[in-house]
């Protein structure tokens, strides 16, 4: 049997070196070092917020609402967020999906018990509302049980969402003051309507 030719050593060494380097790179995740892929918008997702008050509630509602809207539109939550953040006209499908998504978020939060009771939101609402001192003190004096009996958070939120002009809201995304004003007006009207409906039922 003839000995292996001497020149074979270099190709073999090269093969070992290249295989070794590529194997180590791949074994450490070389082929998958890519940007984070957006999660399936239709999959369940836990949503949390650093803020416990009204703003935290709004944040959780918006995150869940956008997720559900993205699911019904067949896009990722991130793609829809980026699209809505761009200036320009919104399609009816987007507005409808967002409306439905927000309503479904209220229903889900009510179901899992993460929707705060109305009394827990009163202080935050009064802090941001521009009421005269006497009226503000009077409202703060109302016992929590009375507030919770008179106002149901889900009812107020559903009325506020139905009342919101989402198309106008999305146009004002760049203007924080206008945005707050629109939401505040919608929530105030929703509280009034909810109380009126409650009184009507009692009578």
């Amino acid at each position: 049997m003839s000995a292996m030719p001497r020149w074979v050593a270099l190709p073999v060494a090269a093969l070992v070196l290249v295989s070794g380097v590529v194997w180590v790179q791949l074994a450490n995740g070389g082929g998958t070092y890519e940007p984070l892929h957006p999660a399936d918008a239709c999959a369940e997702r836990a949503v949390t917020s650093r803020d416990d008050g009204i703003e935290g509630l709004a944040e959780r509602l918006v995150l869940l609402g956008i997720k559900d809207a993205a699911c019904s539109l067949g896009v990722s939550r991130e793609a829809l967020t980026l699209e809505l953040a761009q200036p320009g006209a919104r399609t009816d499908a987007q507005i409808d999906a967002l409306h439905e998504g927000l309503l479904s978020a209220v229903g889900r939060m009510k179901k899992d018990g993460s929707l705060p009771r109305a009394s827990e939101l009163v202080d935050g609402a009064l802090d941001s509302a521009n009421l005269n001192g006497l009226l503000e003190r009077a409202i703060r004096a109302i016992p929590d049980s009375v507030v919770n009996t008179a106002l149901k958070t889900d009812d107020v939120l559903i009325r506020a969402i139905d009342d919101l002009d989402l198309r106008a809201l999305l146009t004002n995304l760049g203007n924080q003051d206008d945005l707050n004003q629109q939401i505040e007006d919608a929530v105030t009207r929703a509280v009034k309507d909810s109380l009126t409906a409650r009184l009507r039922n009692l009578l």
Partner: protein
Amino acid sequence: MAPLLAVTVALVLADSAVVTLALPDILQHLDASVGQVAWVLIAYNLVLGLAAVPAAMGFSRVNTRIFSATGIAVFVGASAVCAMAGSIDVLIVARCVQAIGGALALVGCLEQLVAEHGERRGVATWVTAGVIGTALGPVVGGLLTQAISWQAIFVVQVPFAALAVPAALAVRPARAVPGIAPDRHRPAVRANVTLALLSAALTAALFLLVLLLVQGWGRSPATAAITVSVVPIAALAARPLARLLQPPPGVEIAVGCFLVAGGLLGLALPPSANLAWTIAPQALVGLGLGLTVDRLTFRAMEMRLPRARHAGWTIGARHVGVVLGLAILTPVFTADLQDAQVPAQEAITSLVLDSPLTPQDKIAVAQALGSELTSQQGQVPDLHPAFAELNLDPEERSAAAQLERDLNAQLERAATRAFRDSFLIGAGLALLALLTVIPLRRRRKP
């Protein structure tokens, strides 16, 4: 005299890629577009590639000393103009003139090195100086750009090359070899084609890697220069390795092409943006470079006359190969970088939406990022200014700092992914070079 001529050869060939790490600075300083600044690199290689053979043809009609000295002087003058260029157009034109001078200098220096050292040692010095220059170009360019400025790259060349002008004039002309017809041998087509394809692949390795390090991973030109110094160091190790294993030249060239392809494959698959992951693949590329370029150049010139003309063909093949590499890879990675924007933006959006910041701070971060991304269109964005301008509560700052790190990691991932296809194409070019080495048929035994 000979060391100065060898330094000139190294300088001319180093100039092929010396500005790679300086391109972002040139773009900013001369207010140029990405397309224009690419021509600083392309123009030199294209003109050098196209001028080499005509320069070699003209060589036989002119006095060697005058030819060499003129070429070096033109190269020096054009280098000085490059350093003083106030506009991108002037810089590109000066680079073209520099390449013409470089082509004359390369051909002239070859003959003068042979006159000084004899055929074998003279050619070996010329080839080795060229390989060292090619491998060290990006490293030296990056260090000078970081330490001084991009103009320093051209300024430092002037004294070295200027000293070579009197050196070229002082070399005694070689005695003519009697009985050899000037047009005796045809160009070594196969060796030159291999050289061209391999140069295209090596362009992918050096050009794309420094771009990935500086633009994609946000490293400084000096860090990138030190990182890519692995290639020339590994190239130096190739010759002792070949001496130890003594493969036939054909096998050595084929293995070199395979190593370059393997190194580029490794560069296409880094597991993270840690510089350490580029070292082993670069070492493969360097070994491949060391095993192939000088061997192929010798093969293309060996026993072929007139020597200058065959040297011209090798220079032409190498630099046309570089231009070919740039022409193939530039549109690919530019388009891939463009395509990487959407996944990167989605990843950033996902992280901002889920970040442990208060709703107000999330909105502030999103708005700052939005305006920063818009103002940095067309390049891998630097997100730090967006975070620096935020007015956050002290307890929010650590979460914001973590978010900034996470977002930068996503950008590094997106940039790395965007360069993958270009590195793979580079690997394909190296494999194509390997195919040209394989003999088409066996020689019949007599």
